[in-house]
Structure formats: C-alpha cells, structure tokens
C-alpha cells in the first residue's frame, strides 16, 4: 500500500514536470503545425537564463530576501520568451510555412543544432548550480518519506499553468480565436483573423512554457550542455501519447508517463529507460491520434 502511494506521488511529481515541459510543444503544434525539435533547447535556455539570473540575484545581496530568487526565475523566463520567441518565428520559421510539415521538423532540427552551440558559446560548457530555490522551501513529510517541498510547488505550478492555458483557450475571446486558427487556418484567415499575429503570440507562448520548464528544473539539476537532448524526446513521447495539439492530452499523457516511469523505477528498474518509448510506440501503433483526438494521424 505504501509502495503504491510512493509510486503515485513520484509519478505525479514527475508527471507534473513532464506536463510543463511538454505543453508548449503541443500548443505550438496545434496552432502552427510545427513539431518543434528545438523545444528542448529552449527549455535549456530557460534553465541557463535562470541559473544566471538567480546567481546574479544572490551575488547582488539577495540572501536578505531569498524568496526573491523566484521572481528572478520568472523574470529570466519572460526575457527568454520575449526575446527568443518572436525572433525565431518572424525571422526563421515564417519563411518555411507552406512547406511539408516534415520539412518544418527538419528546420527546427537545424535550429536545435544551432542553439546547442549558441548556448555553449554564451554560457560555456561547465555545469552551473543554483540550488537555493530548491532548498528554500524545506522538506515535507509524506507517509514515511521526506519529499522536498519544491517538488510539490512544481505540481502546483504545473496544475495552474494547465488550468490557465485551458481557461485562456476555451473561455476568453482571444483564446477562441486561437482555437479557430487551430481548427481551420484558412477559414479563420478569410474571416479576418490576423493569423500572423496569432502565430507569433502562440509560438512565444510555447517558448515561454518551454523556458518555464527549464527555469523550474534549473534548481534541481546541474545545468549543463546536453540537458535539452533528453527532454525533447520525453516531450515527444508525452505529446504523441496525449495527442498532438491537445492540452488535455498533454496533461493525461504526462501523468501516464510519470506514473509508468515511477512504477518502473520501483518495480522493474531495467525498464526505466525504455518504458516511455515503448508506450509511445504502442500508442502510435494502436491509436496514432493519441488519447485525445485533435489531429488526424497521417496514416494510409
């Protein structure tokens, strides 16, 4: 009984993290039809920017008010989003619209390659540590185990983000316009929707979410080159399982993958690394549109 609880808690923590990391990817695919392979790199940029921001914060006397480091994290995320999002969409991606969706994947793959080195050039190759935000909230007892409170903060933020995105898309006027574009781009355009504006805003939102994932993760890990590489395929798996373009799907997919991995870690450690991709392959074979059908799988 205890084991199940542990698996559930671990799974939820991991799933919450997966959701934040993946929701931007599914949003961008839903609106712009781009499966962004550079999503992981933007996640990494968020982590690096956060490391720099938090490091700078404490270097400038932030110890007096440690909670302010969280504000530094958010600021870093916003800066990354506002700078990187529009630049990438307007100056790069826009030139390739109208081409096959696989071509766009390849363009984002090229972008991934570029950003990996850009980050090395900016931040160097040595790992960065910013553990303070992680330790700040202490630990909490759950059952017979101690968990770092920060992990539950991630669950909280993840849930809030999910609800917020859902609310904006489904309950606000602007959000419904975005849904219209997702549903039928041409029709929306002929109805007078400024699709270009929707694209750049949606892409920037996706970038923000990816960077947020990185920002939240930075205090938990050593921020170094290569963190993007693992994250992007995890995000792919979650998004495919949940259904490309579906926010709800990303949530369900994230929880599902999170719990599967937690179960695997505790029950069958050998499977830990491949269980996710096995589920991904399984979904592709048996229900390619994912759990929440938003896009029709291109299958003949």
């Amino acid at each position, binding site marked *: 009984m205890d084991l199940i609880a542990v698996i559930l808690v671990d799974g939820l923590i991991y799933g919450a993290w997966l959701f934040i990391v993946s929701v931007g990817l599914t949003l961008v695919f839903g609106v712009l039809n781009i*499966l962004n392979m550079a999503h992981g790199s933007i996640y990494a940029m968020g982590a690096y920017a956060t490391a720099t921001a938090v490091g700078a914060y404490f270097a400038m006397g932030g110890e007096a008010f440690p909670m302010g480091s969280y504000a530094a994290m958010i600021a870093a995320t916003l800066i990354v989003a506002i700078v990187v999002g529009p630049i990438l969409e307007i100056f*790069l991606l826009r*030139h*390739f619209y109208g081409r*096959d*969706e*696989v*071509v766009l*994947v*390849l*363009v984002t*793959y*090229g*972008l*991934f*390659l*570029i*950003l*990996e*080195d*850009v980050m*090395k*050039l900016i931040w160097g*190759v040595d790992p960065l540590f910013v553990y303070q935000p992680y330790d700040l909230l202490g630990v909490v007892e759950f059952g017979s185990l101690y968990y770092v409170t920060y992990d539950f903060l991630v669950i909280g933020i993840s849930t809030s983000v999910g609800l917020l995105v859902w609310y904006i898309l489904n309950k606000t006027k602007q959000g419904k316009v975005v849904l219209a574009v997702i549903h039928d781009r041409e029709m929306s355009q002929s109805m007078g929707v400024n699709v270009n504006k929707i694209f750049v805003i949606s892409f920037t939102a996706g970038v923000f979410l990816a960077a947020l994932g990185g920002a939240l993760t930075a205090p938990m890990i050593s921020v170094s080159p290569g963190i993007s*590489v693992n994250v992007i*395929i995890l995000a*792919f*798996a979650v998004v*495919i399982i949940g259904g*490309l373009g579906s926010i709800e799907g990303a949530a369900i997919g994230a929880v599902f993958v999170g719990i599967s991995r937690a179960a695997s870690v505790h029950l069958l*450690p*050998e*499977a*830990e*690394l*491949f*269980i*996710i*991709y*096995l589920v*991904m*392959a399984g979904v*592709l*074979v048996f229900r*390619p549109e994912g759990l929440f059908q938003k896009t029709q*799988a*291109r*299958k*003949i």
Partner: protein
Amino acid sequence: MIFLRSIWGSALLALIILILCGLALPEWAVFLVTISLSKGLVALGLVALMRGGLVSFGQGLYFCVGAYAAGFMANWFGITDVFLLTFIGVLLSGAMGAIFGPLLATYRGIFFAMLSLSLSMILYGVLSKMSVIGGTDGLNIAAPTFLGYEPEGWELGISLYLFTCVATVLAGAIMRIFFDSQRGLISLAIRDNELRVEYLGASVRKVISINYIFAAVLGGVGGVISGLAIGHVDPEYSYWTTSGEFVFVAILSGHLSIAAVFISSIVLEVVRSFSNLYFPNTWQLSLGVFLLIVIFVLPKGLGSLKILNRNADAADKQDTKETP
C-alpha cells in the same frame, strides 16, 4: 567513354580514386574517410526511403544492431572475419527491416518519423540497462580479420578502408541501379501522388516496405563497419541524435546523386573534426546553419547541383539510345 558513363564504369572510377586517396592520405584521414563512408551507407538507406516520401528519424536502430552484432560475434564467438561479420549484419538488419517495414509502411509524415524514432529509442533504453553487455559503457570490439589476414596498425586501418571502399562502391552501384529501375521510378511516383499509384494497381505499402528493408540492410552494414573501425560500440549508436546525423547527411545530399550522399557524409565528419580542433563548440552550429541553407536554397540537396547530377542528365538524354 560509354563504359565510363555507365554505372559500373563510374563505380570503378570511384573505387580507383578512393584507393589512391587512401594510399596517399595520412592515417587519421583514412580513418575519417572510413567512418564517413560507413555512415554514408546508412544515409544512403535513408535516401531510399526519402525517394518514397518518408523521413526516418530512427535509422540509428540498424546502425546499432550492426555494430552490436559485430561486437557479439567477435567477442563471444570469436568470429572476426570482416566479410562474415558484414554478412551477419546484413541478415540481422534485413530480418528486422522485414518485420518492422510493413508496420511502419502504413504511416506517413511526422508519425512515420516519430514511430521510427521511438523504435530506436526502445533499443537504446534496453541496451543501456543490460549491464551484461556493457550497459551505457558498451563493448569493445576485437580487430577485424580479412579472410585469414590479421593486419595491425596502419595495415589494419588501410585494409578496413579498402573493404569499406569496395562495400561503398558496390552498395552505391546497386542502389543506383535500383533507383533507376522501374521500381525506383514507382517510389518517386509514390512520393508525388500516392493515391494515383495505388489506383494504378501497385501496393504502396509493399514498395515502401522494400525501400525500408534496403535502408535497414544499409544501416546494418554501416554499423558493422563503423563498429569495427572505432573498435567500440555503445547504446549511443541508437540514440536519436545519431539518427539525426544520418538525416542531416541525407537532406544535405538530396536523392538525386549517390556520390552526393558520401560527399555530404565526409563534409559532416570534416566539419566535426576541424571545428573541434580550431573552433570548439561550433560544429553543431555550422551543421545547423548548413542545413537551414540547404532546405531554403537547395531543397533538392547538393545532388541537385549540375556537377553531381551529370549522370541523371545523361540518362535522360539517352533514353531512346542506350540500355545502360
């Protein structure tokens, strides 16, 4: 002259050039070309799939299978003959391709890419956790032998290089013939208008499966040779970034010229090596920029440049004159 323009003529010429280069170049360059050619084989398989309109992000699967097969056979069964190892690699990857091909052949676009990627990542995950075969550290592979001949040092390097050149030229010629054949033309038609091909009476699924098996076999052979050249194999061979490199080469080269595939592979390895030496942390940047430029400016790849597409032009002009 007609012979030279024919496929086997070009192949022979290419082989001679490669052999002369091998004898003239320093040892590190010979190693670099060996690796480039073996990875080029994997990319050639990708090109076969691209001619049918599909991009696989999981060819690392077969690259890995080939290398591990060589590792097992050499370390556990003492089979070190390069011809035998290649043959085993062909059989194993061909069999896997025959199983996965028909399954994957019903998918298109992003879904095909993602399914192929997930298969290679499953293998990565499985191998990483199997400590009995080295886990993430992988295996060291014993040096290959050549029909009894057991070279060492420079001789080993050049022997493997020569084997690779022959394999490359042979594979290139076979694929060129296949691409120019009726089945090759049908692949291009599928990329263009799949519905029409199906309505004409061809099984699109079967054509794609066959392309996939070719790609699997080429991937396996590339893996065997790479594994032997490097002397080591680890699960990274099946990681998605490895598959990504093969995609890079295939996109850079395009599907119009066989030579372009291997030239592109050499470009990749040269950029990687030199950039690491002189401008560290920029080789991925260079590749990324290269890739974007190619996609934007030369959507049909380097092979669409006149100098490399000479053969395709010539074949067009002589369509009623000669049977190559």
